[in-house]
């Protein structure tokens, strides 16, 4: 368990219950969680040099983002940070585009909240 290192996970979703449940599950798994509600907050968090996240759990569709632009920015500004992308309705094109941009995994909503914690651990270990 990465208690000692306290990896920082950025969870970006406009749905409060998703942020809350992911935050609770990841905290229980020993991670420090930072939350973002939209693309603007996500960009801000990724540029925070003092509290740079180690991994991002990102919703594909946000109030101010509905394409792969945000993922592109994150991959560009923090190429070593794994990104797990969540989609409610991911077409084959979106999934392929995200993986081509270097997303670690594309997860379809809804998902097992505890499986997400395992996936985060797996992605961090694969860095």
């Amino acid at each position, binding site marked *: 368990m990465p208690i000692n290192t306290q990896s920082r996970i950025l969870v970006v979703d406009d749905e409060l219950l998703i942020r*809350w449940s992911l935050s609770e599950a990841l905290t229980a798994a020993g991670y420090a969680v930072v939350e973002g509600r939209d693309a603007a907050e996500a960009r801000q968090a990724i540029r925070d040099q003092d509290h740079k996240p180690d991994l991002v759990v990102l919703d594909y569709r946000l109030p101010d983002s509905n394409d792969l632009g945000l993922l592109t920015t994150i991959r560009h500004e923090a190429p070593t940070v794994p990104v797990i992308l969540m989609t409610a309705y991911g077409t084959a094109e979106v999934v392929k585009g995200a993986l081509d941009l270097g997303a670690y995994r594309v997860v379809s909503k*809804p998902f097992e909240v505890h499986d997400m914690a395992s996936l985060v651990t797996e992605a961090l270990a694969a860095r």
Partner: protein
Amino acid sequence: MMSLQALMSAVSQFRPDDETGGLLRAIVESSDDAIIGKSLDGTIVSWNAGAQRMYGYTPAEAVGQSIALIVPVGQREELERISSEIAQGRRVASHETIRVTRDGRRLNVSLTVSPIVDATGRVVGASAIARDITEAKRVEAALRASEERYRSIIDSAVDAIIVIDRRGRVEAFNAAAERLFGYAAKDVLGRNVTMLMPEPYHTEHDAYMARYLTTGEKRIIGIGRQVTAQRKNGTTFPVHLSVGEMTIDGETRFTGILHDLTARVALETQLREQAALTRLGEMAAVVAHEVKNPLTGIRGAVQIIGSRLPAGSRDAEVIKEIVARIDALNDLMKDLLLFARPPQPRLAPTDPRPILETVVNLVRQDPGAREIAIQVVGTSDTIVADQELLKLVIQNLLLNAVHAINGAGSIQIDVHTTGSMCRMTVTDSGPGIPPEVREKLFTPFFTTKARGTGLGLSTAKRFVEAQGGTLAIDCPPRGGTTVSIELPRFEGTAPQRSGS
């Protein structure tokens, strides 16, 4: 003519200078018909002006010659028959035959030959009266040809043509009408045209006609409109009907031209359905997103709360049920998306048999299939299909069969090639489908299951059609249900690896 015959026989009895004989001669000479006297051996003895006009020989040229002068070679037998009748004192009644003129023209003539007897009653010769009917025959033939031409135009018409009289009785029913309605013309001619109409046209038609004939109020004549017609087998179909009016021999008649609109209406329906499906697809994508996001949040939050319940809490069951219901909602969204936005098929040469086996093994795990024997029989050539879509289709059909059996039973999947198609049939030992349900089977959201979306079969059909195939359902009288899929056979010689 009859009296002339009698007179002619008298002619031979009188001397030429006899007063009565002169009168008779004048009558004979003025006739337009050819009147020829001949002896028993066939020698011409008299030849009137009509004979000269018709055959071209003068009396001087003809008298003394054999009657064979004007009889074509092929007609000599007829000549012998006539001679034999005359010799026995019998008259040869008016009949049609051929004669030849001096310049070689063949004439159609109507001929009557009567015996001439002397004072003692002995037959001494014959009188032949011939009328040229060549022109009449030509006109008749031309009329017949013209009528045949019109008939063939009417019968070769693609559209149905029906003529009725002022009381609505059918007077003409062309070949296209026979094809369209399934009636032979003889079944329809003379009967009321309303036999070709379903209600309410059937009841209203007589009143329409009566009103038109009394008031001249036109509802359809000269206008044309779409109406519904009824075939012999009772089924109805849309037609465009245009009606023209005509008067023959002072009798009003109506000509109806019917153009079958079945294909056009079907195409319009298909286009409308496609447009509706496109809209549904756009809507489903939005709804899916708006529903799945909160579902994900609710599901996650309930799971977190559930994980914090004290061990052995009875609320854990409730949490489980909430999650199960959320998953059912999510499945509904998935079904809706699959139906409304089917993925573009990625067609590739595919061996159907392993796909069937894979799906059968999957369905065998279903709790409902525990007492059901599922077997796959037959083989098929390589087909062109999208493996993933085909799997979904087969899985859909098998689960339907499992639900239909609802307990113990059997499902058989037959696979074989027929012509350019591969046919796969799924037959179950279930109770079959009630007739009132059958027609709604492919209606989206129609379901007989307590917890079904009513999209399974519609989706399966859409997927099969997207792969260039067909899906049909049959309920044999012995029970059970058979669903048949046909997909195109791969026609290439070197199948590539699928999924490329």
